[in-house]
């Protein structure tokens, strides 16, 4: 579990999608989220479906990982679907069980909106499945670079994200250690009324926060000692490289958008 906190949901691999520049993937998602709303008939939804299935199969990520990403959203999708069937009364009745009537408009609308949700979640889940959080942080920093002109501290935000990614597992472990240490000293965490248990949090929190502050101070001293000066003129250990693959992905997305535009009703 501790290790999974660092790499997130990343599934290591060497597929085409894994090797893409994180910037490409971020732009792709942004464009996809926009163009998914262009679809409004069977052809356009089928086209988007083909695109999604194509990308998913290119990543070669096991199906079970994708399902994990869909899990939190599956109830929403089902609920939306049922609600549309029950509430939308358009078009001819397809079938009827007692009072329960299913209209064609409701069924079609329900399927479309559920599909849109599934496409969106699948594509955004793929980003986190094929890219490490550190890569995404680098990509975001590069993409948001123009916003530096508006005095937005892009470099600083990216650095703070990296710091927090680095320390999440450390602090998790620390919490565990502190808890065991306090239990050894006789703090009772596991029984008693709620009030007592909440009180027991104090001997857990104080050392945790003191340790977080100490680590922050040490890190700051280390940064200063190495001459950290902010983003200006800083060289990078991980360099992002934009290749022909990336350009072709963006072009194919624009083609997809154009096709959707012509096919939509």
């Amino acid at each position, binding site marked *: 579990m501790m290790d999974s*906190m660092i790499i997130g949901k990343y599934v290591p691999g060497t597929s085409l999608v894994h090797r893409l520049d994180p910037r490409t993937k971020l732009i792709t998602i942004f464009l996809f989220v926009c163009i998914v709303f262009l679809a409004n008939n069977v052809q356009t939804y089928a086209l988007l479906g083909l695109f999604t299935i194509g990308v998913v199969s290119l990543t070669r990520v096991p199906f079970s990982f994708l399902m994990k990403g869909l899990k939190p959203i599956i109830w929403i999708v089902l609920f939306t679907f049922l609600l549309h069937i029950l509430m939308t009364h358009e078009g001819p009745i397809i079938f009827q069980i007692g009072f329960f009537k299913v209209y064609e408009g409701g069924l079609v609308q329900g399927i479309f*909106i559920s599909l849109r949700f599934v496409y969106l979640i699948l594509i955004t889940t793929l980003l986190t499945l094929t890219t490490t959080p550190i890569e995404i942080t680098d990509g975001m920093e590069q993409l948001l670079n123009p916003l530096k002109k508006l005095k937005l501290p892009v470099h600083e*935000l990216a650095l703070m994200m990296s710091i927090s990614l680095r320390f*999440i597992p450390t602090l998790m472990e620390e919490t565990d250690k502190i808890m065991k240490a306090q239990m050894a000293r006789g703090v009772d965490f596991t029984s008693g009324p709620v009030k007592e*248990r909440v009180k027991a949090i104090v001997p857990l929190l104080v050392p945790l926060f003191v340790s*977080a*502050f100490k680590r*922050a101070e040490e890190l700051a001293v280390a940064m*200063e000692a190495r001459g*950290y000066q902010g983003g200006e003129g800083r060289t990078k250990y991980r360099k992002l490289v934009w290749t022909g693959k990336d350009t072709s992905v963006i072009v194919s997305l624009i083609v997809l958008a154009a096709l959707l535009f012509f096919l939509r009703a």
Partner: protein
Amino acid sequence: MKQRKLRAGDMALIGMFAALMAVGANITSVAPFLQVAGIPLSMQPFFCLLAALLLGSKRAAIAMIVYALVGLAGAPVFAQFSAGFAPFAGKSGGFIISYIPAAFAAGWFLERNIQPSKIRFLIASLIGTAIMYLIGTTYMYLALKLWIHTPVSYGTAWGFMIWFMVKDTALAVILSFIAPAIYRSIHKATGFNRNHISST
């Protein structure tokens, strides 16, 4: 607001608090005792307010922004180890966003006074909680209405959240009692002073 450049010390602290939020969101995985009637207690609001009371408005708000971005970038830092875009699309996504203004407001209120009293701590944490639920519940209502297409009335949305609100208000009150003690221990151990932006 005075424009100050973020120093290395501030950035390290902010990163650390964003990490602490991640710990708080899933603290039940290391501290299984924090459950009430089988429901794991999310300590996110608690940690968010603690960040505000310890770091002050600006740094706490940035810490919450960093936390949201780290989650968005795919590290499983939100409740139930979720991450990415999906939690924002869900009905509880508004809370992740609400931590930012909540932390800012609570910190801002505390900063009005250099030597804040206990009452001020209490009001600051209550303001923070109120903002969280105001934004979180409204977001839930809008999410249900606009893209989950399951319209419920605004009142129903509040009715759904009321028990969580009672829990978090209770936690906020407890927090306001223990926050000064935590601050003193940190001050003693590291010389950290809330009113100073770090000198390193």
